[in-house]
């Protein structure tokens, strides 16, 4: 069973200027007894502040907040990329991130090669995941274009491929940054259906968005982020309450 537990998590992001990164400045500040320490010191930005959370199967969590409130940072913590500076994070279950659909894809490589590349970035062995290639081939509808380097693709084709691969795995925990909407009109409907279907197989969904309305429609828990602190809102949507009872 998938489960996520964050206890008193803080993330301090160091902001390096050209100065603090160089060893020279470190040495100068050591040699001058730290008088230049202000220049050499690293500025820290507290991106998340004492976050405590527990997510269980059936949770559809919406992260809502302004730009810079910490939504992306929280997603990166859940993805396992950021280790907390303070506190503990426990994630049980395979995490699939749909934050950047094209992560790891290379323009000069062919469609088939990119399927393998993208799968590897999601931690799947492309040798083992052969069936995924067939499935992506079918769903993306790119046919013989998969033999060509993807730099020759239109942006719509590129998105179709990236979307098809990224949604081809079985997720336990799914992370999204905004609701995905890709391609031409025909494909949008197809993609929407696939995403909905993926969500029914997902145990925990965490989605960050600016759109309050979408979150209320899709989620049964809404977490509001403000300057790195998280507050959980009372559930408002009747649909979401219904989903909560049934799971």
């Amino acid at each position, binding site marked *: 069973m998938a489960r996520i537990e964050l206890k008193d998590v803080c993330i301090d992001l160091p902001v390096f200027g050209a100065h603090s990164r160089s*060893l020279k400045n470190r040495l100068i500040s050591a040699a001058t007894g730290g008088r230049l320490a202000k220049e050499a010191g690293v500025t820290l930005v507290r991106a998340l502040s004492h976050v405590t959370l527990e997510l269980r199967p059936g949770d559809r969590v919406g992260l809502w907040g302004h730009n810079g409130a910490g939504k992306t940072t929280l997603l*990166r913590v859940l993805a396992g*990329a950021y280790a907390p500076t303070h506190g503990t994070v426990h994630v049980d279950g395979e995490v699939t991130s749909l934050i*950047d659909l094209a*992560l790891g894809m290379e323009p*000069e490589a062919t469609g088939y090669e990119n399927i393998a*590349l993208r799968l*590897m970035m999601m931690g799947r062995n492309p040798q083992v995941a052969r069936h995924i290639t067939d499935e992506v081939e079918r769903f993306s509808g790119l046919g013989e274009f998969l033999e060509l380097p993807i730099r020759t693709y239109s942006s719509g084709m590129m998105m179709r491929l990236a979307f098809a691969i990224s949604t081809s795995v079985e997720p336990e925990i799914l992370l999204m940054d905004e609701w995905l909407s890709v391609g031409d009109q025909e494909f949008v409907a197809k993609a929407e259906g696939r995403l909905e279907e993926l969500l029914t197989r997902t145990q925990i969904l965490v989605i960050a968005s600016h759109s309050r309305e979408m979150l209320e429609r899709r989620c049964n828990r809404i977490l509001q982020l403000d300057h790195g602190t998280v507050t959980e809102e009372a559930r408002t949507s009747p649909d979401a309450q219904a989903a909560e009872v049934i799971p």
Partner: protein
Amino acid sequence: MKLDVAGAVADIAESLRKSYLWVRLGWFDIQQRFRRSVLGPLWITLSMGALIAGMGPLYASIFGLELRTYLPYLAIGIIIWGYISTSTTEACNAFIAGTGVIRQTRLPLSSFVLRTVWRNLLVLGFNSILILAIVLYAGIPALSHLALALLGLLILALASVGAGFLIATFCTRYRDMQQVIISLLQVLMFLTPVFWRADQLPKRSVLVDWNPAYYFIEAVRAPLLGMAVDARIFLVAAAIAAALCLGGLLLFAKYRLRIVYWL
């Protein structure tokens, strides 16, 4: 930051389990470099061949040595040096090149170091075609000592894994270090017996005795040239490799979880 050796070892174990992350991607890097060229990665062999064909006769006549004996010496030296130099320089960027991926996923960080080392070993593989050809041309019975040369190569590969962890971690935090390393390597190339021979010096020099690159080059070169192999060379090379691996592991164990914040 506490020293998390168990975490670092688990990270490395995961990379070994998911070997496709560096084996396939390292090979992909090479293909990527020569995409749309007709000869592809064979260009590695060709351009190195051109360098050796140009320098061999020149330096042989400067030093007054016979080309047949000097050419294999130069070829092996320059190819092994090329491996040391490029794998060191590229290690600086091992994590930096993976910024986008490292920030968003939890792939084992050590796979990025292994990918750099593996990629350079592949380049070395393409260049060893030349070594084989030149050794055959020179009529050296090198194959009898092949096992020893491969042992030297194994020690060198392990050393570059250790150095890779050290350099990649350090260079991600201090971005000036790459320039420092490039400058040092440039000087070191001329100070190392790559083009010239250690016995050409009037007396035994610190350039040879205290030069780590010398031991690695010699451990591969001497057996392939069919020369008497000094056990001390192998012992020193192995000791340096062990020290680099230990240092690399400790540094990685200490800062592994910080690396993403330095990108």
